[in-house]
């Protein structure tokens, strides 16, 4: 038996551009490790962060990793844009076809699973317990396992850059191309296992937050008094619960095909590749809404706060969220009208897709009427919201166009489609998370982000987005299909690809401004301090506590009687009262989540490379760690009432200096 499986020295050999990426990663990694040694921060890192069970800290770690992956995803974009702008006629661009295909597959996978999902779970962790008036999530340890599984998947996908290669089969790896017969290397296996591990984390988070929202709300907060963001998360988590098991099963079957020679999705042997396409989109379409719904929730919170008015049509909004949740499960076939399912089937799924536009349209009208007769303050989060209204409506329109099967036949798999979903995911999802990030940033760190630089970042993103994607719409109508590493000069496409590249450069400037904004805001944090805990004149419970929020969130668990409880309390001059404090029980930190996910990472790596003894060892490690953790009965610590008293008094003093 070969102890190293199929791992050989050649796995470390790459073309120059990939080598550059590898070197950058290694330098960055060494830099971080070096800094930790230099500043003697290892113990701090372990105690304060790596073992943290506090959802606010886990949220910050999600956001940190997601931001890092955003940079990686954007680096991939730059390569795609340069390649497509230069690989014309006699020139074949800057990278080989194989590398190019790995790059766009990695780009899609990373942006959805590790950027969008990371931002989403980060914000959910930070805000949901605070908004429902809870001190924690339902299962704090499970939450840490979820996060570390996400981190493991993320580590595995980055490792594919260094050892071996990534999947060249697109972000959803359609078989039979992704089967062993056509993709014999380790790339698809890396894709499968990084998603499988991260996806398991998402599934556990879905369970966790469903229970948190349904079982841990403040006294008096009935379902119809929940903040709308919490509603949007509840709907998204319901989608996670029903959709992610399908992903787990589908990935498992593809893995069984590839590792044990089964015939689920193989072209021959009785396999059925079309079944994969159906299964993956039964997960994939709900996934779109898993990302989208929380962003809708964020926009709703922001509009109400900055218009200083109650959210208009709350019940309509909740009903619309519910309708979208249900409908998102019966539209999956619109991703492959071109499979030849027949007119009746195509028409049904086309009409259902159109129907989703109804509740979505209602939400837009409700946002507009929230601002109507309000007093709108244009802080950075509102800029993202307004940008969203314009880009998302355009994306919605092109989506409605593609819901008509006969139109879809002409634009499916073209850059028109690529432009459409970027319209939804950048203009809809990402803008929403950026808005939420700057909105809730003070709650995380106790100071606001620099407004001016935030606006610069927004303008670059907004203009860059239009400049980058309008040409793609045009290219799609010119017959340019997606994922081309090369095309003929006679097509007349090149100048539009160059314009799109300029758009990406403008977006990069936006990212530069965001990094600068973060740096300047940290540098001048004293000037932007949020002493009150309520920097935006907020409406919901998260603004009733100090910024940054204390570890226990609420010294005294709130009792709620209104929909915007903090706003109402302020109106009635009862926002801040004195209270008698008692001991608070909080979970103790635990490194076991990190350890379990570490074994999962080793497991993933070993399966990819067929190192079977290590697979067995890693599995054993997972099982033993779970049993050890389950046997640990000493998992809680007490924060004495006196300590709570001290922290709350300090917060009150800070508020009074403001």
């Amino acid at each position, binding site marked *: 038996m070969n102890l190293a499986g199929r791992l050989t020295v050649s796995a470390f050999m790459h073309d120059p551009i990939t080598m550059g990426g590898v070197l950058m990663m290694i330098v960055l990694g060494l830099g971080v490790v070096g800094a930790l040694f230099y500043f003697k921060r290892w113990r701090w890192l372990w105690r304060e962060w790596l073992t943290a069970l506090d959802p606010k800290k886990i949220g910050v770690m999600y956001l940190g990793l997601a931001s890092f992956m955003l940079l990686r995803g954007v680096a991939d974009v730059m390569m795609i844009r340069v390649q497509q702008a230069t690989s014309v006629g006699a020139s074949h661009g800057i990278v080989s076809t194989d590398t190019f295909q790995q790059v766009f597959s990695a780009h899609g996978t990373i942006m959805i699973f590790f950027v969008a999902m990371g931002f989403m779970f980060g914000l959910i962790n930070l805000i949901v317990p605070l908004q429902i008036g809870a001190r924690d999530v339902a299962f704090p340890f499970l939450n840490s396992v979820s996060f570390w599984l996400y981190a493991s998947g993320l580590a595995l996908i980055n490792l594919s850059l260094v050892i071996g290669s990534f999947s060249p089969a697109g972000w959803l790896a359609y078989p039979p191309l992704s089967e062993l017969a056509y993709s014999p290397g380790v790339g698809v296996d890396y894709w499968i296992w990084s998603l499988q591990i991260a996806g398991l984390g998402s599934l556990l988070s879905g369970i966790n937050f469903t229970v948190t929202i349904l079982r841990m709300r403040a006294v008096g907060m009935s379902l119809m008094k929940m903040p709308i963001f919490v509603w949007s998360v509840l709907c998204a988590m319901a989608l996670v619960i*029903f959709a992610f098991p399908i992903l787990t099963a589908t990935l498992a079957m593809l893995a069984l095909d590839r590792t044990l020679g089964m015939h689920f999705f193989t072209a021959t*042997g009785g396999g059925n590749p079309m079944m994969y396409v159906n299964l993956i989109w039964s997960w994939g379409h709900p996934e779109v809404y898993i990302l989208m719904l929380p962003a809708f929730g964020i926009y709703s919170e922001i509009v109400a706060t900055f218009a200083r008015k109650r959210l208009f049509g709350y019940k309509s909004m909740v009903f619309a969220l519910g309708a979208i949740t249900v409908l998102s499960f019966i539209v999956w076939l619109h991703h492959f009208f071109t499979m030849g399912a027949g007119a009746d089937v195509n028409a049904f799924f086309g009409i259902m897709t159109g129907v989703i536009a109804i509740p979505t349209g209602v939400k837009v009208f409700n946002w507009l009427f929230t601002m109507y007769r309000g007093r709108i303050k244009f802080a950075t989060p509102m800029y993202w919201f307004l940008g969203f209204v314009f880009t998302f409506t355009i994306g919605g329109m092109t989506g409605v166009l593609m819901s008509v099967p006969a139109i879809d036949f002409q634009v499916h798999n073209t850059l028109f489609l690529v432009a459409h979903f970027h319209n939804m995911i950048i203009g809809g999802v990402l803008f929403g998370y950026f808005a939420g990030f700057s909105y809730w940033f003070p709650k995380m760190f106790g100071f606001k982000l620099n407004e001016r630089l935030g606006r610069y970042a927004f303008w670059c993103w907004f203009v860059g987005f239009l400049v980058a994607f309008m040409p793609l719409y045009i290219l799609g109508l010119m017959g340019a299909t997606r994922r081309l590493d090369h095309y003929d000069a006679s097509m007349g496409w090149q100048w539009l690809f160059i314009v799109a590249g300029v758009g990406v450069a403008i977006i990069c400037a936006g990212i530069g401004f965001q990094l600068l904004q973060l740096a300047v805001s940290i540098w001048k944090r004293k000037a932007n301090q949020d002493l009150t805990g309520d920097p935006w004149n907020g409406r919901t419970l998260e603004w009733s506590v100090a910024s940054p929020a204390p570890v226990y969130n609420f010294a005294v668990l709130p009792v709620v009687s209104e929909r915007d409880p903090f706003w109402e309390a302020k109106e009635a001059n009862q926002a801040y009262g004195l209270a008698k404090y008692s001991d608070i029980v909080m979970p103790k930190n635990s490194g076991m989540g990190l350890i379990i996910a570490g074994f999962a990472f080793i497991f993933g790596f070993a399966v990819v490379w067929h190192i079977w003894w290590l697979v067995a060892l890693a599995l054993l490690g997972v*099982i033993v760690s779970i049993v050890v953790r389950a046997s640990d009965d000493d998992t809680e610590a007490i924060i004495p009432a006196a300590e709570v008293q001290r922290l709350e008094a300090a917060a009150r003093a800070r508020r009074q200096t403001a």
Partner: protein
Amino acid sequence: MSVVRAVAPPDNDKTLFGFWVYLMTDCVFFASLFATYAVLHTSTFGGPGSAQLFDLPPVLAETFILLTSSFTAGLAMLAAHRGNKHQVLGWLMVTFVLGAAFLGLELKEFHHLATTGNSWRRSGFLSAFFTLVGTHGLHISVGLVWMGVLMTKVWRSGLTAVNLKRLTLVSLFWHFLDIIWIFIFTMVYLMGSLS
């Protein structure tokens, strides 16, 4: 019984509810495999189909063993609510042995199929069969490990509130697997043999 309820920790409700939610996700997972099996059960690629391969009597035996184990798991829970530690351990042991016997019979069937040229590599149908039934078997194995660990815990620290919670969860899990098996028995074996 009311006494037991009174000492249960306040987050019992959360855990139990969370476990139900987990079971639902597992249901969706199995539903995906069932759907796959339904699509692939005729994709034999020239190989044998379910009517030629499945032998009902041993599967009926498996079914009875698993149903009985579900019953004994229920008896263990009743004993737990009465606070009778030895009965709990006894019934858990019976359940464990029955579960192991079920798993043994299943592995025997797998072994027979694989050694007679009908492994999961043979066809889409057999891939779906091995995966669906094997995933259930894997769940049974997890249940056995869980039960084993729990037996040592109950033996050492008795019927504490935490152990009672764990017992409730493991018995829920076991009944759930029983229900899944009924579906497998009906859809895979019964309908397969009759077709």
